[in-house]
């Protein structure tokens, strides 16, 4: 039992640690969870979400989503809105894998059409999308070209023929955060990342073939609006981020912030991983710009991978991506900081929203959403474990209090070390195949770490988001094939 005695139940699915819980808390901390999820939460969540509540300039609450678990700095699932005028920006509130995110792509194929070619499909995806530790991409760039990639994101891909205009429309912020200036990037970050465009990476990154079964459609109207129109329709979901480039940007600025935080700005924090600088300081602004470069690299990375996925489908099914209906549902970012306007006491106010392992989930009618999603709310893509399934949700109007944010995945319950001791990758691969899920991986050790039992119950997590009014269930998607990074 790790739940602190001070934790108060505000409503069925909202829990609060008051400011008296820890010295220095400026706002209370709120956790969205069912009774079961809150009881299972690891102690790190309570420690870290209350640490976040001490950050200068934090507004309203430090939040944690139902998939929350122990991270570094912020908990995974953490959300903090700062006053841009008085608040700080913290790389620990964004994560090293800046704009790690999810993309969901439709096809007009059914499971019956794909099953006979599933092994070929997965084998070809595995051969064509570089995965694993230190993998380099198929897009060969000079370092100067890479600077254009990180400043332009998906727009660079559009110019190079790796994207359609429609892809950009269906990506958060059009696939490019404006204000990304590569002069704030170290040579080291460029050197580390310029040959990784179009790579999946490793760990919990994957590309999955999934099926929307009729019995798993929760909201038929929204499912149709999101493009799920055929029974047993096959979709492609993938998860990856800004690769070594983003990791280096975060490392560079973590060190810079550690060196100036106390000395120059007099900020003392309980956890050095929360190292921060005033948002409007030269260091804060430089990081914000560098972080945007990493955000754009991740959008471009997912876009180039999508291009490869379309090529593979097109070759195998002997039809163009258009004829196969390979349209994007949406692309969501998990690890970002963004300036957004939200409701406040006196009308609209601008906030710097840190989301770490959490997803923006705009409700219906929110400016910035594509026209086709104005009535439904934003599609939210929740990646579950490779064994259990994933979800497509939609943002809700009632999510305004939490700055329109929801969960991002299932959330781990078992350490990687423990999972590796508990499961065998090769056996897991065979067991999954027996259950109709064909998996390819470079690493059986890595596969074992991602076993379904190492994660929370995805059904419970998404139900908690709906009960808390953050996001609504639209469809559950079950895996039939997976390439694991």
């Amino acid at each position, binding site marked *: 039992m790790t739940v602190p005695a001070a934790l108060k139940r505000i409503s069925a699915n909202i829990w609060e640690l008051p400011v008296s819980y820890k010295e220095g808390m400026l706002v209370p901390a709120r956790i969205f969870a069912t009774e079961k999820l809150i009881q299972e939460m690891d102690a790190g969540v309570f420690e870290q979400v209350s640490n976040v509540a001490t950050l200068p300039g934090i507004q309203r609450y430090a939040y944690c989503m139902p998939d929350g678990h122990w991270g570094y700095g912020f908990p995974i699932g953490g959300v903090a809105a700062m006053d841009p005028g008085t608040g700080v920006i913290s790389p620990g509130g964004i994560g090293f894998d800046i704009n790690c995110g999810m993309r969901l792509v439709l096809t007009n194929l059914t499971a019956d059409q794909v099953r006979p070619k599933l092994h070929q499909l997965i084998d070809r995806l595995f051969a064509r999308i570089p995965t694993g*530790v*230190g993998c380099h991409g198929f897009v060969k760039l000079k370092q100067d070209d890479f600077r254009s990639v990180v400043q332009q994101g998906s727009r660079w891909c559009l110019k190079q023929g790796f994207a359609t205009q429609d892809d950009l429309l269906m990506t958060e912020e059009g696939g490019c955060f404006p204000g990304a200036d590569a002069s704030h990037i170290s040579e080291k970050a460029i050197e580390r990342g310029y040959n*990784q465009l179009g790579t999946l990476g490793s760990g919990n990154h994957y590309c999955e073939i999934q099926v929307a079964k009729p019995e798993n459609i929760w909201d038929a109207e929204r499912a149709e609006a999101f493009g799920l129109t055929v029974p047993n329709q096959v979709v492609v979901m993938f998860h990856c981020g800004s690769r*070594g480039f983003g*990791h280096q940007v975060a490392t560079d600025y973590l060190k810079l912030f550690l060196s100036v935080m106390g000395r120059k700005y007099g900020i003392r924090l309980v956890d050095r991983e929360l190292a921060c600088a005033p948002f409007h300081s030269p260091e804060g602004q430089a990081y914000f710009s560098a972080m945007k470069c990493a955000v754009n690299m991740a959008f471009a990375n997912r876009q180039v991978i999508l291009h490869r996925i379309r090529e593979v489908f097109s070759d195998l099914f002997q039809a163009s991506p258009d004829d196969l209906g390979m349209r994007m549902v949406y692309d969501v970012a998990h690890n970002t900081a963004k300036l957004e306007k939200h409701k406040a006491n006196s009308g609209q106010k601008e906030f710097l929203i840190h989301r770490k392992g959490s997803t923006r989930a705009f409700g219906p009618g929110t400016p910035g959403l594509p026209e086709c999603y104005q009535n439904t709310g934003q599609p939210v893509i929740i990646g579950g474990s490779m064994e259990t399934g994933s979800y497509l949700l939609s943002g809700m109007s009632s999510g305004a209090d939490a700055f329109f944010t929801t969960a991002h995945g299932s959330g781990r319950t078992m*350490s990687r070390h423990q999972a590796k001791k508990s499961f065998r990758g090769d056996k897991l691969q065979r067991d999954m195949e027996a259950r109709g899920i064909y998996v390819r991986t*470079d*690493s059986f050790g890595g596969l074992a770490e991602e076993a379904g039992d190492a994660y929370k119950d995805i059904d419970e997590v998404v139900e908690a988001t709906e009960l808390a009014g953050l996001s609504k269930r639209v469809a559950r998607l079950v895996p039939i094939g997976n390439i694991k990074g």
Partner: protein
Amino acid sequence: MPFEYRGDIANADVAFNAWADTLEELFREAARATMRVMIDDLAAIRATQTVELQLDQESEEMLLFDFLSELIFYKDARRQLLLPAQLAFYKTDTGFGLKGTLQGEEIDMARHEMSTDVKAVTMLRFSLARLAEGWRATVVLDV
């Protein structure tokens, strides 16, 4: 026991403790613990390539942070799996320096069974301490 992975900190990431009699041995153990996350069999790494290393930091602790970050950098930038060969520590006007070499080779999927990528060294519970006898470090890696 020169290093030990911990399952009780940050379960989505990888935490380890390392112990050694000397600072140099501690750095070597921490390097092994970091690289073992990515490749199970460190003995499979052949020392065919050498990289020069020169780091300056305000503390020995931050020197360890930079040192481990270098290993992670070369894994992405040059696809190299490296371990320390020679390490020499010295004092500077502003703190501490480390000069030496890293040795290893490029990832070869035919011989190297790779595991989980390490993205970064985090500052969560990061510590390097001199004990009555020897040194001890705690490191949480983002994976």
